[in-house]
């Protein structure tokens, strides 16, 4: 019953926000802003820049809210807008070019047992180049398939796979260096 009530409340909020009800818009913003800023932060190193992109994405959310058909998850819909905004920002502002590499190594299993804090994980992600980071985030965190990533980024599926493979290798190397740094060996 509670789930149904929550869903109805959200639906009512969305309908009010479509009619430019500022109170409803603020409620939606305050509900999802912290999560969405985290999403933006995955892609953008600078927090202020990430916030700017989040605001622009929220603007798009409210202007396109009438197109939301209430079929899927509302949070997922907002998240997708955030991700697309971040990708377009990186592609336009940083002019990322994806180099096609067919001779990439197959992914290696490297089950690292050690636990990292969120800050460490974010540090590791930030250490990746923009192209690798985008593909890694989309595949590993957002759960997109290579075909979807390829269409989103306008690249080949093979390029997406190679980018992910390179990202994983780089990430494992960075983890090793981080571990060595923590142990005091470096």
């Amino acid at each position: 019953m509670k789930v149904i009530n929550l869903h109805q409340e959200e639906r009512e909020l969305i309908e009010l926000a479509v009619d430019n009800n500022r109170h409803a818009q603020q409620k939606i913003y305050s509900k999802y802003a912290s999560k969405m800023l985290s999403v933006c932060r995955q892609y953008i190193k600078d927090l202020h820049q990430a916030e700017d992109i989040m605001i622009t994405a929220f603007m798009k959310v409210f202007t396109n809210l009438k197109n939301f058909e209430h079929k899927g998850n509302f949070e997922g819909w907002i998240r997708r807008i955030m991700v697309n905004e971040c990708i377009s920002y990186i592609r336009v502002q940083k002019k990322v070019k994806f180099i096609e590499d067919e001779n990439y190594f197959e992914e290696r299993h490297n089950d690292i047992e050690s636990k990292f804090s969120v800050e460490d994980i974010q540090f590791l992600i930030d250490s990746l180049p923009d192209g690798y980071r985008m593909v890694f985030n989309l595949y590993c965190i957002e759960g997109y398939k290579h075909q979807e990533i390829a269409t989103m980024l306008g690249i080949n599926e093979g390029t997406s796979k190679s980018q992910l493979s390179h990202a994983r290798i780089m990430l494992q190397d960075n983890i090793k260096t981080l571990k060595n740094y923590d142990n005091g060996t470096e």
Partner: protein
Amino acid sequence: MAQNKLENQIKEKVSSREIQPSAQAWDRLDAMLTIAEEKKTKRSPFLSFQFIGIAASVLVFVTLGMFFFTQKTTKIKPQNNVVDTEVKKDSLVKEPNFKFEIPKSKENQVAVSVKNNSTINNQQSTISNQRVSINNQKTAINNQQQNNQNPLINRDKEIELQNTSDVALKDLPKIETRKEIVVQGNTNAKSDEALLASLDKVAKQSNTQKSVVKVDAKSLLSQVDGELEMSFREKVINRVSKNYKEVKVALANRNNE
């Protein structure tokens, strides 16, 4: 390939993470939303202006259509007038011989009227000044016609009358009435000789005055012909240009005020 433990760990940690945005973030978003709303509201008056413009243009077209429709009916009349004037022009050329005859007949009438006046003056001493003045008016008119010895002047007169321009017709009687007033002042004399003398004087004065007021028949005819020969389009253009000038002047005056 399946995700390894590290990637699962990264996903869990990052997905559960929340970063609180700054306090100004909502204010900025609010400002952006209000700007977007203002832009939308600004569009609606523009659309209304568009509708007003369309309505105004339709009205203009309708009025223009009505104007042209009404002008078509009036267009026929000037063409008929042109035909009439052409006929009269021919008659004008032929008529001068008759002109001299008509005054002669009127001359007799003047004489009769004057004689009658004299008999009346002799027999009845109580003749009112009004009557005398009426008779003298007649004599003045007759004398004017009589003393127009120059046939060219007569032609001018005839042309003025036969052109049937209301302005010319209205102007001519006014000049005559002024002369009549002058005659009335002189007709206070009771004797016939004095009356005749005064009539002669009036006739001379009218001659001199008429010689002053000269009307160029050719120029008048050319003007009238020009107006009549003007095509419907030219007339419309002239009217529009006149109206435009009037509006322009009115606007200029308003601005000056």
